[in-house]
């Protein structure tokens, strides 16, 4: 692996640092064309409502994708079990809330801690020893898939396949200006998700730990030579990814209303799409990628039958891989 320039400058997150004016105009033109097409298909209110729905979904995707991207960047490991980390978070919250009687907020915090422990635990028990033995990509991929099965079906084994609910209100909604509506829980989920994402951005930019994580994620060898304690930072990355995944799981389960052991796996490919769209290894990219995928999926329902919504995410994934595998928002230059 040759060294690379950090794909995103430490300036404003998400904007490619040195693109020319032409490129910037190209992006704007595309955005205007897309907006026009949407309005033609749906009308202002429908588009706005779809945007609201898309922001909720997108924020959750973003939370899931950030961790996935950081782990890939620093370890070259695609955590196929990431979707199931989300499921784990949701069920841990359920256990704490319904099983142990904790209030919802406390239960959510327990879930975050539990998922972080899961991530760190797997790093210490599986990934670190395998790396020490020089395990190759195929071994790691298959082990990640195996882990995904174990986590998902262990949850199913213990908790059963029937759908569950966190004790949240799924029926109330708020009126928004313009005739739009958002569910009460969905609003909270969106607000919390974006707040956390903002905190993540600040953390990654400003704290020394954040900078170390980004450095590691961009180029492991280079980071080591600059004296970063890679072992420790990797643990932090896993804990970080676990917390975000757990939170995404709890929020997703709340917004959806009812969830079963497959809930995280179903959106795994959408998470991959977000990460690839944003550029593998770029946390900011994953964030923007997640929001984009959420929006695109909801907007697509204005054009095509709702049944195809998930496929849209997959199609974006394949399209990005085909046309621009390094992603749009930064990330690796090399394939």
């Amino acid at each position: 692996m040759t060294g690379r320039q950090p794909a995103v400058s430490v300036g404003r997150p998400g904007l490619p640092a040195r693109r020319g004016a032409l490129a910037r105009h190209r992006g704007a033109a595309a955005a205007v064309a897309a907006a026009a097409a949407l309005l033609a298909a749906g009308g202002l209110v429908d588009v706005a409502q779809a945007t609201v729905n898309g922001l909720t979904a997108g924020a959750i995707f973003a939370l899931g994708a950030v961790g996935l991207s950081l782990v890939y960047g620093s370890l070259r490991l695609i955590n196929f079990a990431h979707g199931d980390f989300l499921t784990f978070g949701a069920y841990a919250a359920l256990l704490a809330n319904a099983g142990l009687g904790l209030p919802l907020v406390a239960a959510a915090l327990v879930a975050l801690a539990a998922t972080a422990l899961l991530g760190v635990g797997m790093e210490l028990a599986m990934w670190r020893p395998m790396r020490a033995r020089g395990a190759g990509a195929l071994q790691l991929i298959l082990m990640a898939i195996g882990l995904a099965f174990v986590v998902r079906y262990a949850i199913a084994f213990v908790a059963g396949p029937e759908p569950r609910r966190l004790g949240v209100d799924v029926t109330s909604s708020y009126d928004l200006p313009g005739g739009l509506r958002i569910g009460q829980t969905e609003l909270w989920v969106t607000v919390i998700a974006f707040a956390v994402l903002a905190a993540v951005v600040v953390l990654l930019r400003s704290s020394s730990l954040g900078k170390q994580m980004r450095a590691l994620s961009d180029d492991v060898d280079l980071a080591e030579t600059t004296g970063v304690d890679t072992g420790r930072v990797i643990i932090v990355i896993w804990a970080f990814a676990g917390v975000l995944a757990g939170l995404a799981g709890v929020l997703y389960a709340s917004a959806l209303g009812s969830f079963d052991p497959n809930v995280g796996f179903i959106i795994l490919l959408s998470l991959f799409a977000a990460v690839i769209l944003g550029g593998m290894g770029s946390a900011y990219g994953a964030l923007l990628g997640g929001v984009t995928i959420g929006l695109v999926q909801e907007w697509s329902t204005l054009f095509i039958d709702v049944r195809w919504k998930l496929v849209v995410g997959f199609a974006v994934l394949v399209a990005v891989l085909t046309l621009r595998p390094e992603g749009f928002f930064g990330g690796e230059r090399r394939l």
Partner: protein
Amino acid sequence: MSMGNRAGRTLAAAAAVAALGTAATGCGGDDGGSAGEGGGGASLELTVGVLLPMTGTSSAFGPPLEKATKMAVKQINDAAGKAGVDLRVEVVTADNESEPVASVAAARKLVTEGASCIVGSSSSATTIAVAQSVAIPQGIPMITPMSTAASISDLHANGGVTFRTIPADPMQAEVLADVIAERLDGAEGKTISIAGRDDAFGQGLTSEIKRNWEELGGQATGPLLYDPNASSYNDVAGQIVDGDPAAYVIIDLPQTYAKVGAALLRTGKFSADDLFIAGGQPATIPEDTPPEALNGAVGASPGFPTDGPLVEAFDALWDRSPGVEQQQPYMQNGFDAAMLCALGAVAAQSTDGRAIAEELIAPSAPGGPEYSYQELDQAIADLGAGEDVDFQGVSGPLDLDDNGDIQAGYVNVYRYIDGKLTVERQVQAGD
């Protein structure tokens, strides 16, 4: 050691396994086959296989269905003893996971365990799969107590092994359309919004209801078919309530409806008082479904009688039998299906699948004295002596036609009131 030797040895091992399997058939006797063919008074040991939806979307019906069929089998064994007929029935069960591929595996397992008559399956997609892959090729009769898709009737032409103890969709759809028209004071000029889950159940019923509604002079938007595994339903809900329709028709199963119903309520434009649903709904609103999404909804489901001495006897029997307490719809149909298997075996004086299949319709149809399960011993005695009977099921008169279908039956019109499914009235439909 070269690859060639390894390849050769592995192939030989594999071939040996296949050969062993085939050879074993020569030595082993036939199990569950025709024990006791021949004249009256022969010893019959029948194994009835039951496909249960213990997991998956129809899992609410699994445990009660298991109880109902086991109840039936106990009644049969007791009655046979009383009638002095040498008949013993055993039950084997398998989880069909409410989905087609697993159902086929489950059905094969039942046949492996000796079943020569199958009660099942639950949803129409699973019934069609089992019929095509197991029942028809192997000549094993299957009686479904829950599948209502119209297309199942076409399967009977192929081998004559598919039957039902429940009326098919067209009957429900017609009644539901009439009920909606009644509540809206006529169908003319009224637009309703039709939606359903995207599978055999939803696809079949939504198109039937639309057809019936349009024949009554009304208009309908949809059917909007949605993915039961979608990550969110706000978009679906938005489209369903679009245009302020006079009523909503939603064909879904409880687990998915929990999510769809919540999304509908969040639109602020939906009220369950305007909602019409079909069969497949449990006796009480499930915990994960918001009650306001169902309370007040009116539905039509293939019926089961709710009063009369036979039903009271069945309810009493249910209450004192071991197993789950809560009855569910279709349990009576399952009870009757198991009964028919046994009656067919007695009539055929054989436990061979094809022989039973040929004798399933006659005991259910008019001709001969009418017996219910309370006179089971007399029914068995008559059949054993070669006479015809007209068995009356708990779920209705049965009276299967030449396609193994029920033509005349009850459709229950019900409503969810305070979380409970309450039957308001019964309509007798069909000829």
